[in-house]
């Protein structure tokens, strides 16, 4: 399908931007590539794909059972197998943080771990944060403080910020914590910036991200 026809077809049906991304691009890719290649591209040799492995995951409170090529990263499992496209693939090497999700409440880079390694574990993505129609306080704070421009890093920033607040509430120190032996952490701007350094924002919305996090943490902004 050429691009013009693709858009003409889309014009005929009422779609949200998200459905376009999910149905449009995935459908196009699926016609061109076998499933295994999507999960673990690039396949560079003539080896047969390894036998699939069954993985049980609890994602955003719902159980899922998947049969996956063991090479499938958690990020690809979420995006390509479950259509949870909130976690973004930025660098795919753990350098940008756009793929950040929470595993058992802890933030990690979903691009640098295999889905099979998390069999039986509970995962929260950006899609699982809102309570029905009401946004998670961190999501609301990002909206209120304009904590984004293009929005590509935002789902990772928000998941990361939620994990970060949980870490600071446990008294976990950071590199800029002056006294390692103080039991409580005061979330200064410097602390927030250091703790969020694994999430890169090309639009440089950092001041607003810091403000949003402070609001969600119940601090004056």
């Amino acid at each position: 399908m050429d691009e013009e026809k693709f858009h003409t077809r889309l014009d005929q049906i009422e779609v949200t931007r998200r459905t376009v991304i999910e149905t449009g691009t995935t459908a196009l890719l699926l016609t061109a590539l076998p499933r295994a290649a999507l999960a673990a591209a690039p396949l560079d040799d003539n080896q047969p794909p390894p036998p699939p492995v069954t993985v049980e995951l609890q994602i955003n409170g719902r159980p899922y059972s998947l049969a996956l090529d063991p090479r499938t990263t958690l990020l690809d499992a979420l995006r390509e197998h479950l259509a949870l496209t909130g976690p973004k693939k930025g660098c795919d090497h753990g350098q940008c943080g756009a793929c950040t999700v929470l595993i058992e409440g802890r933030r990690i880079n979903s691009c640098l771990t295999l889905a099979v390694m998390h069999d039986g574990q509970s995962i929260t993505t950006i899609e699982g944060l809102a309570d029905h129609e009401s946004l998670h306080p961190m999501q609301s704070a990002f909206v209120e403080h304009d904590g984004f421009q293009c929005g590509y890093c935002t789902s990772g920033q928000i998941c990361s910020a939620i994990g970060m607040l949980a870490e600071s509430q446990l008294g976990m120190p950071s590199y800029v914590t002056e006294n390692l032996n103080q039991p409580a952490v005061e979330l200064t701007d410097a602390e927030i910036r250091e703790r969020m350094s694994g999430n890169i924002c090309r639009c440089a919305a950092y001041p607003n991200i810091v403000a949003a996090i402070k609001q969600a943490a119940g601090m004056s902004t």
Partner: protein
Amino acid sequence: MRAFIYHRADSPVHAAAAAIQPGGKIIAGGTNLLDLMKLQVETPSSLIDINRLPLDKIEETPEGGLRIGALVRNSDLAADSRVRQHYGVLSRALLAGASAQLRNKATTGGNLLQRTRCYYFYDITKPCNKRKPGSVCAALAGFNRIHAILGTSEQCIATHPSDMAVAMRALDAKVETINDSGENKIIPIAELHRLPGKTPEIETSLSPGEIITAVTLPPPPPGVQLYRKVRDRASYAFALVSVAAIVDSARGRIRSARLAFGGLAPKPWRSPQAEQELVDAPANTTTFNAAAEAVLKDARGFGDNDFKIPLTRRTLHRVLDEMTRA
């Protein structure tokens, strides 16, 4: 990523037995290994997942030290109250490394065994003696700003990237291992990493299939502890130069000191000569300069990284000055 068969280990011996097979590779946090597998720098044919093994405890030893399980996550180790109180240099070094997301995943054993971030090692279209023994070191005449100035060879000038290991080197940590017959071994951290010499592809003294199960810290040494990391940006970057220092001093006189360096060498670098210069010495510029000269006596730059020589001197000077100021 090349295809592999995935196994989940149910005991350390089982993991060791699987890892000794050709193409076998242990995966713990996976933050470095999967990165390298995506680039096909690492191409294991079987991956042995050890994450479910009970190696995630931090226990006090009868000697008054700590025994850290190989699977203790970097973030948990940095936040442990005993580490924060008695091994501040280790806590700081851990917190200086990577990002919070990566530290939540990265393990103690994996951190020790992570590979260099040399650009040429990472790029399979370039020659590299570490990846392909007998090719050539592309960094020698290439971009070598991040490369080593100490302990290098004509075959390899890559640095060891860990911060944690530098602090452990200053603390004289011991690495516990197990093999496929269930035999345990204790390796002083000084002997874990090897210099490249003519075999840069052999990075550690571990035998095939030998698995790290724990790292033991001796009782905390006397003195104050500090980890100073100099890098291109304030956070989330590898060290250009880092110093793990433990200095025991009073009223302007140093009793003893331990100095370990990151970013300078193919392994966490300790300088006994520099430490000797500081024993029972006045805390002044002459002493600090003598220590820096001792560290850098055999230093050699390769062009882009020449700056590391004066940077190391100044960083050490600053660290010692800070630590001995009453």
